């Protein structure tokens, strides 16, 4: 796996392959008409293979890659379930049902029964409905943490990459401080700094952890491009520096950023679950979120009813796997090494 930070994103489309002329005029007369057509066809099919843009090339390769397809299906299903959760879930996720609370004690959490396929959670709510609704909150936490991290990181990286010099140096020292702490410890520090945990402190903490990663990725890509031929050409043509950054360097770096964002999503929901496990998660008992369900109830009642841990864990694993597969496949697809 080569370092994504040093890899420029998309490069300029390749120029069309130098195509041979096939058959020269003066010899065609020697051949029968049928042969002529065949030769021309052969010549056409062997030339004209270049010119496909790298992005289109990458998409074509993604669609042929089973890993990407599996990842995309998982991610797609996850998003669909999240959108339509209220329609899919049999019950309200925060309602406590008398059928479930009836026998509920700390040592006995009712399992599957009619109307409640996965049984109860520790508060007498429908576990299946909470799991389904959990996809929404998980998507929410993951997307926000990723987007905030990406936004701040891209901002820092773009400024550093566009200006270079001391601006770059100063910003990189800032990311150094963020990178000086191992990721989860940084998140713990950030959450602990807030006097009280909320869903937002978790999202923010997980997001900040990813800021230096995006910043360095974008900066590296942009610095590599500063010296590239197409940027030099644009500069020679008198394109304004601002436009070079906005129209040439940034868009070309974004592919790598998007790939990183896909991978970050998986890390974000795992980190959020870890914070919940450490007691630093969202204290709202009504919130159904997989990390919270696994980290709090799943942990506390593991001996009583391990399903409370198994199902959210399985959901997290599958979704994290889906995003990782998709991200890895995307990274492979944009890698110029794999271009054919």
């Amino acid at each position, binding site marked *: 796996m080569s370092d994504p930070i040093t890899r420029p994103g998309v490069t300029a489309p390749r120029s069309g392959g130098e195509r*041979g*002329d096939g058959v020269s005029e003066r*010899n065609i007369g020697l051949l*029968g008409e049928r042969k002529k057509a065949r*030769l021309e066809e052969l010549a056409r099919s*062997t030339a004209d293979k270049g010119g496909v843009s790298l992005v289109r090339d990458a998409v074509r390769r993604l669609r042929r890659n089973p890993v990407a397809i599996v990842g995309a299906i998982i991610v797609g299903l996850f998003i669909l379930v999240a959108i339509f959760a209220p329609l899919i879930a049999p019950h309200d996720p925060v309602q406590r049902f008398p059928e479930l609370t009836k026998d509920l004690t700390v040592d006995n959490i009712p399992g599957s029964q009619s109307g409640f396929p996965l049984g109860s959670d520790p508060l007498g709510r429908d576990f299946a409905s909470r799991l389904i609704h959990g996809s929404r909150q998980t998507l929410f936490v993951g997307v926000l943490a990723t987007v905030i991290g990406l936004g701040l990181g891209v901002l820092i990286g773009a400024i550093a990459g566009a200006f270079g010099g001391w601006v770059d140096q100063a910003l990189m020292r800032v990311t150094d401080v963020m990178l000086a702490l191992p990721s989860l410890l940084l998140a713990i520090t950030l959450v602990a700094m807030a006097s009280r945990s909320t869903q937002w402190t978790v999202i923010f903490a997980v997001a900040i952890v990813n800021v230096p990663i995006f910043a360095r990725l974008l900066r590296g890509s942009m610095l590599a491009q500063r010296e590239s031929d197409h940027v030099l050409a644009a500069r020679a043509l008198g394109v304004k520096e601002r436009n070079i950054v906005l129209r040439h360097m940034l868009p070309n770096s974004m592919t790598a950023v998007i790939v990183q964002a896909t991978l970050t999503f998986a890390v974000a929901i795992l980190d959020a679950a870890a914070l919940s496990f450490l007691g630093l998660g969202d204290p709202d008992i009504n919130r159904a979120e997989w990390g919270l369900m696994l980290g709090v109830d799943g942990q506390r009642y593991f001996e009583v009813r391990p399903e409370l841990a198994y199902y959210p864990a399985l959901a997290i694993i599958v979704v994290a796997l889906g995003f990782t597969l998709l991200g890895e496949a995307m990274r492979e697809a944009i890698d110029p090494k794999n271009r054919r």
Partner: protein
Amino acid sequence: MSLLDVRDLNVVFQRRGERPFTAVDKVSFTVEPGQTVGLVGESGCGKSVTSLAIMGLLPKRGNKVSGEVLFEGADLLKLRPDDMRDRRGREIGMIFQDPLSSLNPVIPIGVQVAEVLERHQGRDRKQALKEARELLDAVGIPDPERRLTEYPHQISGGMRQRALIAIALACKPRLLIADEPTTALDVTIQAQILTLLKQLVDETGTALIMITHDLGVVAGLCDTVNVLYGGKVVERAERHDLFARARHPYTHGLLSSVPRLDSPRGERLHAIRGSVSDNIPWTEGCAFAPRCDNVVDACLEGPPPLEPTATGGDLRCNNPVQEEVAVP
């Protein structure tokens, strides 16, 4: 008995989900002891694959090699991998195109030369290093003592290629295969390396297979030349005959595309049209047909056979070039 007798060598690349591709198609040629034989052609014509097949260095998967490669009568293709390993570096040496990437960047030059001697001559490290010093000296590397402990990135490109030649010749092999040994070098260095090769081959009596796309190299070095196109030998001739009278339109094209000092002012260089990718499968006709000036109907009916010529060579063409090309 020839030193090396390649008979009907076939290499087919077969990747899962893709059509098999015949890179080397029934190639036959011989190398006599001490002789220098050229394999000439554009990139993609199968000359490198041929050499790797002889050395048994093709990837284990994804290809099928058939035919016979008789080295002093023994078929190398039928040897057990370990027996082949014993011969590589000892009886057959090989030099590659890019000397920088062909040397291990994190091992000192001395060890890279010495390890061949340790492997095949049973020397210990100390003795091997001493001999390595002499070898580096013999290939014209200045201050060989110091080079022993240096790394490839610390020496020049020409010296790296000299070091590779030292490695290939360390065990005094009877056959040396040089795969485009000068392509990656500066023009001035190219001549030095070729001179060195010629000198070493003459001194040691080692036979040499010279793989190149550069007819200048052929003119200076080779006794016999095999011209390859599309994985097939299209013409074989003694060097003198080839330059005096190239019969195959492809060879002819190669010769006429070399710029010459004595050609009339204003005369245009002759370039062969198209590129190697414009060939048709041999089963359907002559692979060179789409690029050929002399193409006739028969060229598309089926592959022409390789037939002996009056001058003792071989030729695979329906409509050979008749005119005479002046000797360069």
